């Protein structure tokens, strides 16, 4: 019974460490630069405690259940050799992990509220929820697709930079036709997607695959999945914005 407790405390320490640099910087600015009263300081303190406890449970739960089983499945599919199932699994893994990504939930909510205030969508609760949900699933679909392309690339041994540069060109072309209001959200969605859940599982898939194919360097081929996963959402979110015109 002692072991889980130690693990839990270690996870708590990590969450505190996540929040600590932000807290230090903000306290420093409040005390020495701004010197203004903080509104709702009580609520902010309680909320920060929620963030720390929430992040702790979230990551502790991931390490307990999802990561071991997800990683062993990623390795199993990478080694089994059936390309069709491997690609389906890659898509599902990319999609599923992204839907549960807390940072993406946060940003899609914010984006929906701002879109409602800006008059892009109706300012009703249902319209906002629908927009946020649509945004989230668009990004998840894009990450799933990125996983498929990335896995296919590792099997074929194509260099990652050509796909990335091709993606950049596509982003630039899309930017010229996408509505102005979506561009910022689209560009941001690339960085938001690859976070707590997606990165470890996608990396496991990539490295498992690269190490099971002869003549592949896990270093060179295993990475690069994350880069693809931060590129495709930009393209797809711009397309999503165009569908709202």
């Amino acid at each position: 019974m002692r072991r889980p407790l130690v693990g839990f405390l270690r996870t708590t320490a990590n969450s505190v460490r996540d929040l600590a640099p932000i807290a230090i910087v903000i306290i420093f600015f409040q005390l020495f630069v701004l010197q203004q009263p903080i509104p709702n300081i009580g609520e902010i303190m309680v909320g920060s405690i929620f963030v720390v406890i929430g992040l702790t449970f979230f990551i502790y739960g991931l390490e307990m259940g999802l990561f071991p089983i997800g990683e062993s499945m990623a390795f199993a599919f990478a080694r089994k050799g059936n390309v069709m199932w491997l690609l389906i699994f890659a898509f599902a893994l990319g999609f599923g992990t992204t839907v549960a990504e807390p940072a993406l939930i946060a940003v899609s909510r914010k984006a929906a509220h701002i879109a409602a205030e800006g008059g892009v969508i109706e300012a009703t609760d249902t319209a906002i929820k629908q927009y946020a949900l649509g945004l989230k699933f668009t990004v998840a679909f894009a990450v799933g697709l990125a996983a498929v392309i990335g896995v296919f690339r590792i099997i074929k041994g194509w260099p990652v930079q050509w796909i990335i540069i091709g993606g950049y060109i596509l982003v630039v072309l899309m930017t010229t036709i996408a509505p102005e209001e979506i561009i910022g959200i689209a560009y941001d969605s690339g960085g938001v997607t690859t976070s707590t859940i997606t990165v470890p599982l996608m990396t496991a898939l990539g490295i498992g695959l690269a190490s099971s194919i002869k003549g592949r360097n896990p270093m060179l081929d295993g990475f690069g999945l994350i880069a693809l996963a931060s590129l495709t959402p930009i393209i797809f979110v711009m397309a999503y914005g165009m569908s709202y015109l």
Partner: protein
Amino acid sequence: MNGAIDEVLQFAVTFLHTIQDVIPIAVIIFGFQFFIIRKPIPNLKRVLTGFFYVVLGLALFLQGLEDALFPIGKMMAHQLTDLEFIKHSTEALEQGITIHWSQYYWVYIFAFTIGFSTTIAEPSLLAVAIKANEVSGGSIGIWGLRIAVALGVAIGISLGCWRIVTGLPLHYFIISGYIIVVIQTIYSPKLIIPLAYDSGGVTTSTVTVPIVTALGIGLASKVPGRSELIDGFGLIAFASLFPIISVLAYAQLSQWYGNRNNSKTLQASQNRTDRKLTENKG
């Protein structure tokens, strides 16, 4: 007392919504396990407990997000752009003098500090740095890479804030950034390229993203003439693009430095053997 009940009710609603977020990954894991791999899940009880913790943690986090992270980002943006804070006098205010972008310097300093401190403390970055050190055979230092990425994020976010203040179009910056990355890619050591590309994605953590997003939107709402929708987003994009540039630059620098040192030692040993040869001859 009513407030507490409201809070609990609100949390219950968030908790139920959070289950929806976790259902897809649960369905995928269990579905593939039962129908494709066709083996029972080892430690099923443990896995289920883990999923319960994930849902509980996510619900608590989202509650804290609305109560703390979003308000903090917004508050910092509002206080740092407060006219009284910037002008230090209300007279100038009454005269209606427009504010030059350089007068928002505390915003840029704050953005830089937040970017640097959160990135340098990021555990996943440390893992990437250790791997990069191994791949490069030691020529890429662990601390060197961490500082390179942290500087990239810091410069990215503060430049992003400057863009919001000036209202310049976001895509000019991102497209120029892409062009720089492409040029650097051509001249960079091949092994570092995937790592550099990935370093852009891993640096923005779950706590940093909401604060930085709220900071950008808060800035856009306070700076005169900016729209939250058009100008408010983009900080995360800056924070993911600039580390790619700074990591590639760092890799190029350390390669160049390594080559120079190698050729120096080579030359030195050459000289030594030459001297020995002449001595022997003499």
